[in-house]
């Protein structure tokens, strides 16, 4: 039962959506929603790695914002600079994630404190970099990726997300690294004793989260086109909520990547449904908060049944 819960929840939600707005069940509308969900899904994949290994990454929001302002000001309307910009941004994300992972696994700073502090530092850096008024806009590849469709049907962003997912899924389920990650998350002491380099495994997980946050931020920049310093703020809650809605445990070692995607889609479809029902932003917050609490509680009671 627990295994199927994320899918049942999403199915119910889509059914409700279909009842209230039959037109939104059209395949092109569903693909649009999927395309909009792309940045969140990518960030949630990164967050999944971290939560599966028993940690948490609270810096994703600030990293997304940094990637956004960095990309916009570096590209600044000139499509030819896109390649270099993407490389620079990814390097920044890799560096931030590695520092997080390094400090957490070697420096014995609790994950929560480290990524919270890092989030504040990055936020400050973003403000300093933009002096409070971000400039520039993205052009070329990022716009195409976010807004155009393959053969005019399937959004490129959906294809891109599918690729990222396939790669991450393979890493978690088809490589030794994936097995080490689950082992570390499940019981770090046992993992150490069986010869796993726990520190390296954790550091890589945080590095992946950093890189994927930047990737999500770049894709988001393609959607919004311009720079905005607070653009990533909501992604901390939503990415964590997506993973938890997918049934993963904060204790680590438990969780499936595909379920995190389903969790992210649940959030996106919920917001979509509320928009269709003309619920305002306050109402959206109230429903989102209640749903997150209710589903988290649902999983807790299910865990109790299994024991």
């Amino acid at each position, binding site marked *: 039962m627990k295994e199927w819960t994320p899918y049942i929840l999403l199915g119910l939600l889509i059914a409700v959506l279909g009842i209230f707005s039959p037109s939104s069940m059209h395949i092109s509308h569903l693909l649009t929603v999927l395309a909009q969900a792309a940045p969140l899904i990518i960030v949630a994949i990164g967050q999944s790695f971290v939560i599966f290994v028993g940690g948490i990454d609270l810096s994703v929001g600030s990293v997304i914002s940094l990637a956004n302002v960095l990309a916009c000001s570096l590209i600044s309307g000139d499509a030819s600079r896109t390649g270099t910009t993407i490389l620079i941004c990814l390097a920044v994300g890799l560096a931030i994630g590695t520092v997080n992972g390094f400090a957490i696994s070697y420096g014995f700073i*609790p994950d929560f404190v480290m990524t919270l502090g890092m989030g504040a530092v990055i936020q*400050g850096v973003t403000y300093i970099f933009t002096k409070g008024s971000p400039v520039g806009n993205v052009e070329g590849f990022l716009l195409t990726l976010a807004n155009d469709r393959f053969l005019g049907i399937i959004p490129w962003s959906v294809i891109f997300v599918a690729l990222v997912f396939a790669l991450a899924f393979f890493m978690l389920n088809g490589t030794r690294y994936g097995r080490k990650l689950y082992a570390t998350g499940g019981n770090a002491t046992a993992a150490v004793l069986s010869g796993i380099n726990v520190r390296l495994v954790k550091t890589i997980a945080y590095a992946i989260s950093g890189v994927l946050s930047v990737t999500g931020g770049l894709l988001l920049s393609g959607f919004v086109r311009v720079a905005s310093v607070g653009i990533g703020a909501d992604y901390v*809650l939503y990415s964590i909520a997506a993973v938890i809605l997918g049934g993963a445990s904060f204790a680590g070692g438990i969780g499936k990547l595909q379920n995190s995607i389903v969790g992210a889609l649940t959030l996106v479809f919920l917001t979509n449904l509320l928009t269709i029902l003309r619920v305002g932003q306050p109402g959206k917050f109230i429903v989102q908060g209640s749903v997150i609490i209710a589903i988290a509680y649902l999983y807790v009671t299910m865990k109790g049944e299994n024991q």
Partner: protein
Amino acid sequence: MKFNSSYIFVKRSIPLYFILLGIFVVASASTDHFFTSENILNVLVQLSPLLVVACGQTFVVLLQGIDISVGAVASLTTTVLALGSFEHFFGAWGPMFLIVVLGVAIGFLNGLMIYKGVTPIIMTLGSSVLVKGIALGLRPIPGGNVSFTIAEFFCKELGWIFSVPFLISITWFSILAFLLHFTRFGKYVYATGADRDVSNKAGINTMKITILAYILSSVSGVLAGLLLVGQIWSGDALIGEKLSLDSVTAVLVGGTTFEGGVGGLFGTLAGAFILSIMSNVLNMMNIFSYYQYVIKGLILIFSIFLSLRLSSRKEKSIR
């Protein structure tokens, strides 16, 4: 053997007071205006909401939890107090009653769910979004009028460095410090935080303790909201957001750790003072507020790094 928790935790926080003293001396020496009664008064007024929230947050962190929703609760308080029509029916202090009831209800929900096994950060992030929604529903854009009586009371200056908000925050600190360090409830909080299963077996009603701790935290959020009302005289659904993470920072800088059952309110007091004075000094030195995010983040990381390095638990975490 007599176990006197208060003595131990005052002792633990003594180094922090030396750091605080150091910051104070450096601040007085480097800027002319720091050590004036007007500025100290100002620092203490600015400090008061943070101190109040951090005191409540300490209980929760001692239980290996966290309360991200306090900032939203403080914001909600300002929006409820700015509801003119409500006051019309129930008098100036009517909204206060309503918001205290709401605060207790939110804390109760947080505590109950977390006791049932929902992860504290997910629970309180969820309730924070929920409460933010209610506050934004009441007041989509900042504004409205708070009863003159209430607003004036919460910003009254009493001469020299004293003001009503500061006295309220210190009184709240004293009440909670008494609760935590001198009553059975306080000892149970430490015990539950250190090991809930063992505490349960020892006959402590850990469910009651958990719920009470989150109620204390939530009510602290309400009180901080009242103090904010004294500063802005209106309702603002986002004004308190910073308090959530700032209060966690103050608690952690104050030496209470997420391991549970370690730390105390005297450390939190020093932590809140250190953060507020740092912020004031950075402002006076004309350091652009953007840099303050960076500095605050670094203070958080390094203070925890140091406190873990210095603590006797070091060996345990190295393996």
